[in-house]
C-alpha cells in the first residue's frame, strides 16, 4: 500500500526523521480513541505522522488485512503473531504492554455453568470445557490444563468457536460445564444465569501487543512513523491509567456503545496498564505459549525472537520514562 519508502534493514537503526506526510495504517481502536481524547494526536501530527485508522482488531481480521497489504499494524494479544508465523505471514511485534496486577485483572475467567461445582482448577477433571483451537481462549484452556496438571484426555473438550457471546450462551444452556469468558462479561453472565459462577485461572493472560507487517517495518518511512507511534502509544496507555473516566467515555461509551455504568465496570476489570522496561518476561511467556501450542496442535517449533522487533523496545520504555514497570509485573 502507498508509495513504499526506502528499504530499511531490520538491523539498521530506526530513522528519527519522518518524511512529511508518511501514512501508517493502524488498527488500534482503543488507542485511537485515547489519542483523540488526550490530545496526543497533535504530537503525531507535529511529527508528520499521518495515521489512517482502521476499526480492525483481533487475529483473523488483522491477518486477512495484512495478507491483502491493507494494514500496517494491529493491536492484538499474543496468539495472532504466532498464527501469522505458522501460516506464512511475516510480522513483527513492535509494542508490548502488560497489566500491572495481572492475576487479579485477568482478561479471561473460567465461567462455570449453573449447577456445576468447580472451585479450583483441579475440579476441571472430567468436565466439558469449551475449546476453540485457533483463538486465545483455546490457548488459555490448554495453559489452564497444563497448570492443573491435566491432559486433554482428562476432560472433554467441546469444540466451540467463541463468537460474540456464544460461550456465555453455551454455559447458560449447560452445553458445557466450563468456558473461558471475558472478565468483563462475568458480571453479565452471572446476572443472566443465576447459579452460574466463575473462577480465576491464576494464569497471566495479559499479553497485549501491537504487531506489524514485517514489510512495513522494513519501509524506512513507515518505520520512522512507527517509532513515533510507539512512543505516543505508550503515553496514551499511561494517560488511560491516569484518566480512567476519560478513557471510559472516549472509547467504551462513545465508540463501543456501552452505558456509563458498564463502561466503568469494564475499566475496573481491565486494571491499570503497564509499560515494561524490557520485553524479556513477555517473550519468555510468549515462547511458553508457542511451545505449548506447537506441542498440543502439532505445529512447528517457533523461535519467538523472530517475531519481535526489539528496536522498538527502548522507544516504548523511553516514552514511559519513570512509569515503566519492572520485575514480576513486567
Amino acid at each position, binding site marked *: 500500500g502507498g508509495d513504499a519508502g526506502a528499504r530499511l534493514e531490520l538491523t539498521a537503526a530506526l530513522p528519527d526523521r519522518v518524511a512529511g506526510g508518511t501514512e501508517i495504517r493502524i488498527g488500534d481502536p482503543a488507542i485511537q480513541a485515547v489519542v483523540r481524547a488526550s490530545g496526543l494526536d497533535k504530537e503525531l501530527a507535529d511529527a508528520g505522522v499521518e495515521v489512517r485508522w482502521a*476499526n*480492525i482488531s483481533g487475529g483473523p481480521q488483522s491477518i*486477512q488485512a495484512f*495478507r491483502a497489504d491493507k494494514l500496517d499494524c494491529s493491536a492484538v494479544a499474543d496468539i495472532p503473531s504466532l498464527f501469522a508465523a505458522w501460516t506464512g505471514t511475516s510480522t513483527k511485534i513492535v509494542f508490548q504492554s502488560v497489566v500491572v496486577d495481572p492475576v487479579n485483572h485477568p482478561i479471561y475467567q473460567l465461567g462455570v455453568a449453573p449447577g456445576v461445582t468447580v472451585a479450583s482448577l483441579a475440579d476441571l477433571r472430567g468436565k466439558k470445557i469449551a475449546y476453540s483451537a485457533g483463538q486465545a481462549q483455546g490457548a488459555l484452556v490448554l495453559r489452564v490444563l497444563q497448570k492443573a496438571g491435566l491432559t486433554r484426555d482428562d476432560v472433554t473438550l467441546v469444540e466451540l468457536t467463541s463468537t460474540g457471546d456464544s460461550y456465555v450462551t453455551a454455559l*447458560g444452556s449447560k452445553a458445557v460445564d466450563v468456558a473461558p469468558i471475558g472478565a468483563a462479561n462475568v458480571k453479565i453472565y452471572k446476572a443472566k444465569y443465576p447459579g452460574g459462577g466463575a473462577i480465576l485461572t491464576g494464569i497471566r493472560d495479559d499479553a497485549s501487543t501491537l504487531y506489524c507487517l514485517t514489510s512495513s517495518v522494513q519501509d524506512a518511512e513507515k518505520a520512522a512513523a512507527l517509532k513515533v507511534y510507539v512512543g505516543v502509544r505508550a503515553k496514551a496507555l499511561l494517560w488511560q491509567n491516569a484518566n480512567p473516566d476519560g478513557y471510559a467515555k472516549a472509547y467504551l*461509551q462513545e465508540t*463501543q*456503545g*456501552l*452505558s456509563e455504568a458498564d463502561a466503568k465496570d469494564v475499566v475496573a476489570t481491565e486494571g491499570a496498564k503497564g509499560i515494561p522496561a524490557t520485553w524479556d518476561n513477555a517473550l519468555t511467556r510468549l515462547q511458553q505459549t508457542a511451545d505449548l501450542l506447537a506441542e498440543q496442535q502439532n505445529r512447528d517449533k517457533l523461535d519467538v525472537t523472530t517475531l519481535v522487533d526489539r528496536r522498538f523496545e527502548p522507544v516504548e520504555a523511553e516514552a514511559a520514562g519513570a512509569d515503566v514497570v519492572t520485575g514480576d509485573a513486567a
Partner: protein
Amino acid sequence: MTILETRPRVARPDVRVVRRRLGPGHRIPYAFWIGPILLLAVWSAGSATGLISPAILTAPWDVVVAFGEQWTDHDLLGNILSSLHRAALGLGFGIAAGGVLAVVSGLSRLGESLIDGPIQIKRSVPTLALIPLFIAWFGIGQEMKIVTIALISLVPIYIHTHNGLRGIDGRYAELAETIGIGRGEFVRHIVLPGALPGFLLGMRFAVTSSLLGLVVVEQYNATAGIGHMITLAEQYGQTDVIVVGLVIYGVFGYCADSAVRLVGRKVLAWRRTLED
C-alpha cells in the same frame, strides 16, 4: 358442492351460485399487521410469564428502553442510516449487474455457459470465506463492503430473473420472431415484462440479503451500522442491544419485503392468478 347464498346488501336481491372456493380468496385487509402483531404478542406473553427468560430473549419493553438509550446516547439513527446507505448502494449495483447478467445469459447459450457456472459456484460458497479475497481486491474500506453486498444481492436477482426469463412461454418468442422485432425490442417488450414476476421474487430475496450482508461486512473496519452495533453488543454480552438490532432487521426486512410485494401487485395487474 354448490350452495345458494343470499346477499341482501342492496335492496335488489342477489342470489348467486356460490361454488366452493378452492383458491385463497380475497385478501384480508390489514393482514399485513397480523403476523408481526402475533409475533409480538407471543414474545410479550412469553416474557411476561417468564417462559422466555430475559437471558435468552430480552422482553419487548426492555428492548424499547434499550432502543431509546441507543437512540439518544449512541446515535442509533446514524447507525441505521449508514447501514441503509451501504445496503442501498450495494443493492443498487447488485440489481443492475444481476439483471444485465441474467438477460445476457438467459438469451444466449454461450453467455449462459460462461456466466451461469461461476455465479452458481459463487453462491455455493460462504460469503464469509470470500471476504479475504474481497479485502485483497477492494481494500478494507467502504468499497469492499459495497462490492460484497452487491455480490450477495446479485445472486438472487440473477437466478430469479434468469429463471423467470427462461420460463416465458415460448409462443411469445415465436410471435416476436414473426413481427420482425429486433433483439433490443424483444428484450424490452417480451423478456423484461415476462421475467418481471421472477425478477420481483428475486428482489424480495435481494433486499433481505443486502440487509443481512451488513452483518458480515460491518464486522470489518466499520465504525457505524446496525451490523457493527450487533457485533459490538455481542462482544460485551448486551443481549438487549442485540435484540434491538434484530428488531430493526426484522422491521426493515418485513417492510422492504412487503413493499416489493405491493409493487409486484401493482405492476403485475395484467395477471389473473390465484393471488387475485
